[in-house]
């Protein structure tokens, strides 16, 4: 305790030097006076008295030294001295200080912000028990990599597998609930009873679903998400056991999920209910509507599990050839389903930020080197006066630390800001699919990463001059002053660093160029219809009122007629699935009058109303489209897309041909009446699948999208259209009100590409700037070193042009080397990110040439300024300057 007190006093002493020294001096002075007085009283002469007193006191300086050592902590004191010296040096050189700290801040800010995203998405474990043992289970077909499970298949997989501790299924589903805001559609999910147990999640409140509650006859139960509990029920405890009506069916609330629970595949589901499979789809092995999750048994590898479910799939294929032909199994870690899409992009961005950090660090290191060169003389003097090498090294380490600490504090602050900015740029729809981003922030892992970066930068910055210090020759340093061999040595190291910078900038620029070109290509993709001036919204009519087919058809007709009558609307139509959504909702078809060997001709199936193609402005290539009067009373008719015609009717006229389901059940037979141009049903970067369109009136539903073509401004008409629909029946729920252009623009594929392109382009622009500034630094330094030589040359009659050439040649060689090395690296890097490219080769020549031209041009500009200074050197003053 006493020791600690003494240490603290001494530490305090480090900072209170001046007052203490004065105090001691006064005390010793008074000591001497007292002693002299005594001596005089004892009869000595004043001179003698003073002499004796001084002798008795002992060495004054030793006393002061011993006192000082006791008053402070010597090591700390000299470090503080160095620190003060460094701060003074940095203050005297504001341009250097600001440039260096800003570059460190930029590099650290960008890389920490991106790392924080990588951390929440890829490093932080999912909020389930032992999440690495969870797998995502689906079927797979040659056309659909992740095909949903059918209910009978799920039951068989669950029963016959030997590799899962448990297996459960879920599917996404919205529920219409009567709230104070009218009929509201609320996101939800249906799960089998063991779903939460498989994930290893227990409810915060109430209970989990119990076994058997997911059977058809069981009473309906419901578990709330934490957010729904807070938002809709005010977080009241007594909610458990309360009844609630969803989709006109009574449910009982049995539990509430914990606040940190999220399950990205069903986005922001608020209501979780049991599956309770009714009839219809759940009875048929060919109706695929469920997604599976399973927990691997201890010691079972993913491969072993895959082999086991593949065996089951093959057995089922043999047993049920009609429905299960080519239905394989697919297993993947659950994490890859949740973050699989963003993983390559995040890694790309992390690599980009890392390269930026590298360039920033190299720039700062070379600035430090230049500083070192200009301080050579000072260092040589200090060395000659007896400073140890360790002491000089410590000086550099402290200088590096000051720059890095200040820079990284600024960097950390700006990274916090960048994180929220970046997160804010993600469209809400997509954010719902990334619940893990809620934890974004400076957590301990991110801070450890930041510390590692800081450590690396400090080491780099302090070691570069230290490395040079090793062969500091005192004599040479003092004699040489500012010019000579040492300068040349620096130019050599500095120019190597610049080559690395330029090559790195080249890699980033090429990356940005390729991504930009891919994005451009993506936007050039023909959607197959006119996306401008198109309003879309989803409607859901109550089943009790419109469940009957005739009533549903009547409602559809009323909707279309009413909307068409609105001012500003040109046409309107209905579709069960909108274009640019997904490929899927498929049907297996079999052509009448053709040989059949059980293959699955899998094609997209869409139900659309009569004006659909006209409203989308898709081209009718052959035959005709539906009429409004073609309903259940008329023979079934379909319109096919070009892809279907090409695949199954090459060289034939498809009009008048017929097809049905795989049993060619007479009730399923449909006649082809027209061919339309391909409408892209899936995202812009997906393939076009064969598709056929049913007449809505022959296959009506109560839940579908409305598509409205407007003559002018589309967005402003959205409320008018919604009001018109509500005027028909206020119980109709309307959701997803937007325009087709906005849908296309905010589609995940477009968004991810656009944002990664902008970010990488931003990194590349900064890298270009830093690289060019670095080149400028080297050339300018070299010119300043050679002023005398250039003066001599000019005095001896060299032309200005020759001088220009001399300098530009030096710069050109550096830039060219950087560009060549950079091109090589860029092609390698681009091959690694091939997955992210669209319609663009990694070695895309135009991109490479453009980037090289940009980089070369900027380099030329950067070296032109020092070259002009060299060429305008006045020989007289250059020679006299020495």
């Amino acid at each position: 305790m006493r020791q600690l007190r003494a240490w603290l006093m001494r530490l305090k002493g480090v900072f209170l030097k001046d007052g203490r020294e004065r105090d001691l001096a006064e005390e010793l002075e008074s000591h001497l006076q007292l002693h002299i007085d005594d001596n005089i009283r004892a009869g000595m002469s004043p001179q003698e008295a003073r002499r004796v007193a001084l002798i008795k006191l002992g060495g004054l300086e030793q006393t002061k030294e011993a006192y000082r050592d006791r008053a402070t902590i010597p090591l700390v004191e000299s470090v503080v001295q160095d620190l003060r010296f460094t701060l003074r040096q940095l203050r005297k050189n504001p341009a250097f200080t600001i440039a260096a700290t800003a570059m460190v801040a930029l590099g650290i800010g960008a890389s920490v912000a991106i790392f924080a995203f990588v951390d929440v998405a890829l490093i932080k474990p999912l909020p389930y028990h032992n999440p690495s043992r969870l797998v995502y289970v689906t079927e797979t077909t040659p056309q659909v990599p992740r095909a949903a499970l059918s209910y009978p298949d799920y039951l068989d997989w669950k029963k016959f597998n030997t590799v899962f501790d448990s297996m459960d299924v879920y599917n996404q589903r919205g529920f219409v609930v009567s709230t104070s805001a009218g009929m509201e559609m609320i996101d939800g999910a249906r799960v089998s009873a063991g779903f939460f147990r498989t994930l290893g999640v227990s409810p915060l409140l109430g209970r989990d679903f119990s076994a058997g509650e997911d059977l058809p006859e069981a009473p309906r139960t419901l578990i709330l998400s934490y957010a729904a509990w807070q938002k809709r029920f005010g977080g009241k405890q007594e909610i458990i056991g309360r009844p609630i009506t969803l989709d006109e069916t009574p449910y009982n609330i049995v539990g509430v999920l914990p606040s940190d629970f999220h399950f990205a595949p069903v986005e922001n589901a608020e209501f979780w209910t049991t599956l309770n499979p009714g009839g219809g789809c759940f009875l048929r092995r060919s109706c695929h509507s469920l997604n599976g999750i399973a927990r691997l048994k201890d010691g079972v590898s993913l491969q072993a599990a895959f082999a086991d479910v593949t065996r089951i799939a093959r057995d089922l294929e043999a047993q049920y050839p009609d429905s299960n032909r080519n239905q394989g199994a697919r297993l993947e870690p659950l994490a890859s389903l949740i973050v699989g899409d963003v993983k390559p992009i995040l890694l790309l961005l992390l690599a980009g930020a890392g390269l930026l950090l590298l360039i920033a660090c190299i720039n700062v290191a070379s600035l430090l080197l230049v500083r070192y060169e200009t301080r050579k003389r000072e260092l040589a003097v200090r060395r000659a006066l007896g400073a140890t090498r360790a002491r000089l090294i410590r000086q550099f380490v402290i200088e590096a630390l000051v720059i890095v600490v200040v820079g990284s504090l600024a960097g950390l602050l700006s990274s916090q800001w960048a994180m929220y900015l970046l997160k804010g740029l993600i469209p809400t729809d997509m954010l719902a699919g990334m619940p893990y981003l809620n934890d974004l922030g400076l957590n301990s892992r991110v801070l450890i990463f930041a510390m590692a970066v800081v450590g690396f930068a400090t080491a780099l910055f302090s070691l570069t001059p230290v490395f040079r210090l090793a062969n500091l020759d005192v004599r040479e340093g003092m004699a040489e002053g500012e010019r000579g061999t040492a300068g040349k040595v620096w130019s050599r190291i500095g120019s190597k660093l610049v080559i690395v910078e330029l090559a790195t900038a080249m890699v980033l620029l090429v990356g940005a160029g390729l991504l930009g070109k891919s994005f451009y290509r993506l936007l050039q993709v023909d959607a197959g219809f006119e996306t401008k001036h198109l309003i879309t919204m989803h409607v859901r009519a109550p089943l009790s009122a419109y469940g009957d087919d005739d009533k549903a058809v009547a409602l559809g007709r009323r909707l279309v007629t009413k909307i068409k009558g609105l001012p500003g609307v040109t046409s309107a139509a209905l579709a069960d699935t909108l274009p640019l959504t997904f490929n899927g909702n498929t049907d297996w078809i079999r052509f009448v009058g053709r040989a059949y060997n059980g293959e699955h001709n899998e094609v997209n199936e869409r139900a659309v109303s009569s004006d659909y193609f006209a409203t989308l402005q898709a081209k009718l290539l052959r035959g005709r489209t539906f009429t409004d009067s073609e309903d259940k009373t008329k023979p079934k008719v379909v319109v096919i897309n070009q892809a279907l015609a090409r695949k199954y009717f090459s060289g034939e006229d498809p009009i008048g041909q017929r097809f049905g389901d795989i049993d060619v059940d007479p009730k399923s037979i449909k006649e082809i009446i027209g061919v339309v141009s391909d409408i892209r049903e899936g995202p812009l970067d997906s393939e076009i699948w064969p598709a056929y369109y049913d007449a809505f009136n022959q296959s009506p539903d109560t839940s579908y999208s409305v598509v409205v073509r407007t003559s002018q401004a589309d967005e402003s008409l959205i409320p008018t259209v919604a009001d018109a629909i509500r005027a028909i029946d206020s119980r109709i729920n309307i959701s997803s009100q937007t325009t087709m252009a906005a849908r296309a623009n905010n589609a995940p594929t477009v968004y991810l590409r656009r944002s990664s392109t902008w970010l990488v382009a931003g990194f590349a622009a900064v890298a270009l700037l830093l690289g060019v500034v670095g080149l400028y630094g080297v050339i300018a330094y070299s010119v300043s070193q050679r002023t005398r030589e250039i003066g001599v040359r000019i005095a001896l009659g060299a032309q200005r042009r020759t001088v220009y050439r001399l300098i530009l040649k030096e710069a050109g060689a550096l830039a060219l080397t950087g560009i060549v090395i950079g091109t090589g690296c860029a092609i390698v890097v681009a091959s690694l990110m091939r997955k992210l490219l669209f319609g663009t080769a990694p070695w895309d020549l135009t991109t490479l040439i453009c980037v090289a031209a940009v980089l070369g041009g900027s380099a030329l500009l950067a070296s032109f300024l020092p070259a002009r200074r060299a060429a305008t050197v006045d020989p007289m003053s250059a020679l006299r300057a020495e």
Partner: protein
Amino acid sequence: MVSAKTEIWQGTLALMILKTLETLGPLHGYGVARRIEQISGDKLCLNYGTLYPSLLKLEQEGWIVSEWGVSENNRKAKYYKLTRSGRKQLEREAKEWNQTTAIVARFFAPTEGQS
């Protein structure tokens, strides 16, 4: 073992300082030095300067406090005063010192016949 020696010396010097302050009350550095010399019967000849780091150490540890004052012959001087914890510390150290010297003394005492 120079350091061990100095440590012992410093410890002893500290004890002497504390005892001096206890006996004479608040006193300046010069007075303490003179007193130590006098008590030792001029057998201990010390450079007065070495006293000051020791005084500082005692002050840092909280055994004594210092204050500027005026000496009897009207000179400005820094006075040191024993604190309460310093007094206790002195008691403890004095006891330890007595025990130690007693033990050491036994070793050097003329051997008596053992019974």
